[in-house]
């Protein structure tokens, strides 16, 4: 019994209780400003959800779109990679997979800083162009950094290897005899792919998409390092409220919204991600 309770209780105390507290803050029941009166109030919530032209709501939707686009791009970019690993790489494919995944296990922060070094106004790309005489010295390409492009690029870079993994697993486990059967029935390679391989790989594709979608929704580090004022994400607003203003109540509204949207995403896409954790030993689906 202890083995089940201890970890569960730990999660409750360290994670659930803080979220509940944030909830209470968002409804005005608690405050961090000494001497302020507290009472149940939905004013911050209604301001965020329904206030005319609320900029945080605007940023929320922009952020969501960026996240969906980046996740989609990463999934699209990862598919050929997974396909290569499963069908072309042959015997050494697990080693090659390791080669692809290894950067993912180095420091995320360092990799974003590396992109900062590459993209910045006197960074690798710009100074290379100046040295080669392709661009007037001192004139940097302005959209390379502190832009939506840089944020999207960094996020894409960070997640492509990770997304390739579930797709690869599915493709790798694909029963090759099915492909042979399709060929025997007269299908060409492309046709086989469209009608057999791809549809069967969809669970892996969706899993990969969700694997990148959920963490990216709350992303705020990349915009801090390579993003500009017009490319900040929703996570940055949350961070700003808690570090730049004393308004923890409004910040809590934003934080809780982020949690809610992630749970919704999970509910929508989670059906595709199997979990054998929920089955007891010996049980089948």
């Amino acid at each position: 019994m202890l083995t089940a309770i201890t970890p569960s209780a730990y999660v409750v105390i360290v994670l659930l209780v803080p979220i509940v507290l944030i909830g209470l803050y968002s409804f005005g029941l608690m405050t961090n400003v000494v001497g302020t009166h507290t009472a149940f109030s939905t004013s911050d919530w209604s301001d965020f959800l329904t206030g005319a032209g609320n900029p945080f709501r605007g940023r929320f939707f922009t952020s969501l779109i960026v996240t969906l686009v980046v996740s989609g791009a990463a999934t699209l970019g990862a598919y050929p990679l997974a396909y290569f690993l499963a069908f072309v790489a042959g015997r050494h494919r697990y080693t090659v997979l390791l080669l692809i995944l290894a950067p993912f296990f180095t420091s995320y922060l360092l990799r974003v800083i590396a992109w900062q070094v590459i993209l910045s106004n006197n960074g690798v790309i710009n100074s290379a162009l100046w040295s080669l005489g392709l661009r007037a010295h001192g004139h940097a390409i302005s959209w390379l950094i502190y832009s939506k492009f840089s944020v999207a690029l960094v996020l894409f870079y960070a997640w492509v290897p990770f997304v390739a993994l579930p797709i690869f697993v599915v493709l790798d486990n694909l029963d090759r005899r099915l492909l042979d059967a399709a060929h025997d029935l007269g299908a060409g390679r492309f046709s086989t792919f469209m009608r057999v391989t791809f549809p069967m790989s969809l669970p892996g594709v969706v899993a990969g998409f969700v694997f990148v979608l959920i963490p990216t929704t709350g992303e705020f580090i990349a915009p801090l390092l390579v993003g500009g004022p017009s490319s900040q994400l929703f996570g940055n607003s949350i961070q700003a409220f808690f570090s730049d203003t004393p308004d923890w109540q409004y910040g809590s509204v934003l934080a809780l919204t982020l949690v809610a949207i992630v749970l919704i995403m999970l509910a929508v896409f989670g059906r595709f991600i199997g979990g054998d954790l929920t089955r007891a030993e010996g049980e089948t689906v």
Partner: protein
Amino acid sequence: MKAVGRTGRAVLSTYFGLLVVFLYAPLVVLVVFAFNAGNIPSLPIESFSTKWFSSAFSDTTLTSALLRSFLIAVVNGLAATLLGVMAAVSLARRRLALRGVVVTLILIPLVVPYIVLAVGMVVLLHELGIATSLVAVLAGHVVISLPYSVLVILPRLRTLDPSISEAALDLGASELRAFWFVTLPLMAPALFSSFLIAFTISFDEFAIASFLAPPGSPTYPVVLYSSSRTPALLPEVIAIGSIVIVLSLALVVLAEVARRTAERRIEARTEAPPLTAG
């Protein structure tokens, strides 16, 4: 017929090659500029120099932050693995009350954005009247590492041949002894993986640390972040960063090699004798 034809192979292989270059280019950039004598990481490279390494190692703010992060990551690895073993043991049982609740709780940290957890813990500490501290950072790291630990340990636990620990019990060992001397060693590769994953998560974690590490004792990612915005401190950051990258790549390779070796050895030892006909 092969699934991929000749043109297909060429296209996919080219794509793969480009992607590998794309993935490793930033890492190479960091390592190259770590040896750049210039003050700004800009081309052309001025001259080869190791001065940023010596400068970084004599910067006690940076080195003490590295040490702090290392220690927190080690403790996090141990604590998350311990909790992960406990959770895995309970989930591997045939019957478990409120199984769904336990699973949900164990997996929730996977979906809560770190920024929300960070500000939530700030609020919690504030309400409890506790000051921010490295212990709080550790507590946050343990909770986010826990699901990964369970996800690595539980499958391994499930694939173990139960007859081995049953044999131990038949021989008179208590459940705890059987677990400690029989089951646990058999899970060694998974425990090691869990430790490594938790270590990696903690060492690089920024969101929680940025809010909960006391200003006088920042962790390495926090120092990394603030230094990256100060041009004067960037070269040192790159120097240390290149070491971290090389070490972590080496670690990934070593871990995989060790895991495969260990698994092969354990399977060889615990292989059931082949069934003979008749």
